[in-house]
């Protein structure tokens, strides 16, 4: 009996040692030589593997950063400037700060504004629906409401509002990775400059139909009347194909266009209710989240 036990222990130990040696040799032989800086860069990345940078994951991004001569073509939208600074310091490179961005849904065709004209009965996917037809409202450009963007978002930053049937972006969670922009078959979602104190002015419509047609389909549509472009003191607005577009690089947030728009298609968000740019915004509304109180033009990197 004892002998059996001893033999068992001996054989198993021997087997273990032999296999360990084999494993070691194999690992040694097939070791892939890699730049150690890739590991270092990967460490400072967010590690979400979202693909927002255009690479397959964080490691692929790190590799790309290490191999590239500079960081001009590589940007981690999730980590933002802070992470890129860290990457730059690891690699000893310079990096220019980028304006923080956020995903913006450019459709305001809520159930009331944009009445249904038919009922969709296929698979609940915007891509499938868009491939089939123009959608279940009179507007052939607007949101299809199946939530492909919600499914595409790795950060839980988009949700469908059941009341409006439109997606809502949680600005706190949005990392501007651009996954939703790619997922939207109607190209409604756009990455826009986050703006001073998160204040933004944008045209919440992508309808290129003629004014009357657009308005018939949706009472909140941009009808391409061009009033906004005329009133804009900064030449930030262009009207093309019956649709106005505000260049966020030129927009100075004066909101003149918002007042002028006859259909309310131009939205201004996160502006304090009392329109005094210098006044502290926080006390005005309790409901407005703390971000309004942040004084910086560059909000802190979201790490929570």
């Amino acid at each position, binding site marked *: 009996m004892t002998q059996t036990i001893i033999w068992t222990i001996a054989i198993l130990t021997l087997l273990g040692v032999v296999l360990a040696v084999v494993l070691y040799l194999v690992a040694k032989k097939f070791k892939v030589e890699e730049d150690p800086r890739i590991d270092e860069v990967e460490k400072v990345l967010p590690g979400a593997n979202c693909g927002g940078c255009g690479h397959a994951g964080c490691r692929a991004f790190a590799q790309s950063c290490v191999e590239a001569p500079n960081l001009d073509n590589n940007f981690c939208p999730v980590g933002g400037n802070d992470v890129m600074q860290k990457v730059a310091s690891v690699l000893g490179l310079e990096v220019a700060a980028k304006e923080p961005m956020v995903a913006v849904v450019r459709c305001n065709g809520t159930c009331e504004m944009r009445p*249904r*004209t*038919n*009922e*969709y*009965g*296929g698979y609940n996917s915007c891509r499938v629906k868009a491939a089939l037809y123009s959608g279940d409202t009179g507007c052939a450009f607007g949101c299809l409401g199946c939530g492909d963007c919600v499914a595409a978002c790795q950060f839980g930053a988009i949700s469908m509002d059941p009341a409006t049937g439109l997606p809502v972006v949680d600005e706190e969670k949005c990392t501007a990775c651009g996954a939703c922009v790619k997922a939207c078959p109607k190209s409604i979602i756009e990455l826009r400059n986050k703006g001073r104190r998160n204040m933004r002015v944008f045209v919440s419509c992508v309808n290129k139909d003629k004014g009357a047609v657009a308005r018939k389909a949706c009472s909140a549509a941009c009808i391409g009347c061009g009033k906004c472009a005329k009133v804009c003191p900064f030449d930030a607005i262009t009207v093309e194909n019956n649709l106005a577009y505000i260049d966020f690089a030129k927009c100075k947030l004066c909101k003149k266009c918002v007042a002028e728009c006859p259909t309310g298609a131009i939205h201004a968000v996160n502006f304090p209710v009392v329109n005094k740019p210098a006044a502290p915004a926080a006390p005005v509304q309790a409901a407005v989240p703390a971000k309004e109180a942040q004084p910086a033009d560059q909000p802190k990197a979201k790490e929570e």
Partner: protein
Amino acid sequence: MDKLLVSPSPHLHAKTSTTSLMRDVVIAMLPAVVVSVLFYGWSELLIFGVSVASCVLLEYLITKYLLKRPCTVGDWSAAVTGVLLALNLPATTPWWVVLIGAIVAIGVAKMTFGGIGQNLFNPAIAGRVFLLISFPTYMTDWTRPQGFIGNGLDAMTGATPLGMVKEGGISAVADLDYLDMLFHNIGGSAGELSALAILAGFVYLLVRRVIKPYITLSILATVAIFSGIFWAVNPAEYTGPLFNLLTGGILLGSVFMATDYVTSPMSNLGGVIFGVGIGVLTMLIRYFGAYPEGVSFAILIMNSMVPLINKWCHSRKYGRA
């Protein structure tokens, strides 16, 4: 309807649904159920009742309270498992053993894998094998209880033909009447009673296009050929093809259990490989194993091969010959 419906083609759908398919399987099992109740009486009826009720109830409770998903008992799949489990048990099984079998079948073999469509092993067989290992005395008690008809028949009591062979060698079954076995007189689990009742179910399933014949026929052919070879070489030692086809759970297993959609290969070729595997394993266990019967084990073992078989066997594609 005030608004037009728009959806991608096709705009029509066949009448078959998961529910209708499962219901057809239950209907196909009815002859076997009726025969077993007629011959085994009230106790058999109780087994069916307990088995089906507990399977359905368990699935309901698990989907509703544990998984918090839409309930799937409406698709009849739990009922199929219940009937199948009961058909796999001796007529004398106590009700609480049946209940344990149902818990293993639905709770462990089906729902832990994610419910219908996800399970790797056939739930009813998993339940039966669990019981066979855990309660061997109950599971091999082949006493025939008082039935509604047929009590005066020259029935074999106390052992199945396969068990008799295991115990007493081939001479123990020398005077078996195959015609009797075809109709109603096979000792064993409830579902093994009448070969004809099961074949009736097989025909029904084929006619209703619920199953394709490949799996069943390849199992039966393999068993026949395998045993035929051994029998031809040494008839004194090994039982013959007819005996092996008609005794034990080979018919029940090949018609109702091996053909379970979820746990069998999807292609025809895969089905044949699967069937041959089951046939060979069954015969190996019968001839050389410790158990007199091996269909359940064979099916379980081959169930685990299904993902591999599916990976290897694909259907013939147009223009890629």
